[in-house]
């Protein structure tokens, strides 16, 4: 047994080629940079993809939220019948009120102008009216009521 063990120990003399050993070592140690670069590259690509996806999702969620809450015409209210009816009612009401306001203003202006004309300078008013009426009157028509009325006013 001792003899076999001593023979086995002699096999320790088997050694790898020195050139191979050194080359192999250099090759192995060089792979570190490549490995770390590859890892960095992979991490970079992954984080880029992740951030792009997150941005895209945020954009979609934000956009939908904006459209839902925005008062701008971008909101598609045309599809809602109730909203349309309410808008139509408001529109009629608005028109009526504005018309009333317009009539009131016109009436006031008219009465102010008439009272001013009568009190300030009736003679001038009369001559102006006469001149205007003279031009407009159709003398060939003896039954023109407007002419009659105008003459009546002057006489008064």
């Amino acid at each position: 047994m001792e003899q076999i063990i001593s023979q086995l120990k002699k096999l320790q003399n088997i050694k790898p080629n020195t050139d191979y050993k050194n080359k192999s070592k250099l090759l192995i140690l060089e792979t570190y940079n490549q490995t770390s670069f590859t890892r960095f590259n992979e991490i970079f690509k992954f984080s880029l993809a992740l951030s792009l996806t997150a941005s895209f999702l945020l954009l979609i969620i934000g956009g939908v939220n904006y459209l839902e809450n925005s008062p701008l015409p971008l909101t598609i209210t045309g599809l809602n019948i109730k909203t349309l009816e309410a808008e139509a009612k408001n529109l009629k009401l608005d028109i009526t009120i504005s018309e009333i306001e317009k009539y009131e203003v016109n009436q006031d202006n008219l009465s102010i102008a008439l009272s001013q004309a009568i009190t300030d300078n009736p003679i001038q008013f009369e001559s102006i009216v006469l001149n205007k009426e003279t031009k407009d009157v159709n003398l060939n028509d003896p039954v023109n009521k407007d002419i009659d009325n105008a003459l009546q006013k002057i006489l008064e």
Partner: protein
Amino acid sequence: MIESEHKLIQQAKQGESSAFGVLYDNYHEKIFRFVYFKVSHKEEAEDLTHQVFLNAWKNIRNYKDQNLPFSSWLYRIAKNKVIDYYRLKKNNTSLDSIKDSLHDDYNIELATEEILNLENIRNAIKELNEDQQDVLIMRFIEDLPIKEVATSLGKTESAVKLIQLRAIKKLKNIIKNGTDYITA
């Protein structure tokens, strides 16, 4: 594990190639011999040993320091590489065809008769089962303590002692009775 080795491993884990270079120098020959006796072919052993250390360097960050010798981890990688090697070779090459002569491979400065003896032993080792081969190579060629062999092979110390006893007995019988086989 010696303190300096622990330090080297920590440095290598942080990416210091010079630290791994020192570990490489310390263990390369042992791992090479282990692989060589398993595959009996110089070039194949060189390739496999290269792969073992490349694998170790790439995965050194995953190495868990559990107060076990660094060599145990390397031997485990080497063992797996050899298993993979035979798995791939099985369908392609006959094992006999890749056996090289010790003399051709290494020009050991020994008498021809002694070289023949060593070659007989090497061939006899090939006749042992895998566990017996591993134990004999680690215990008697690499002089590793039983504890380290047990750790490397994932076995108990008593199991290693038993395997060792059986391996030597079997080796003795092969050498004694198998002259015809060896010289054939």
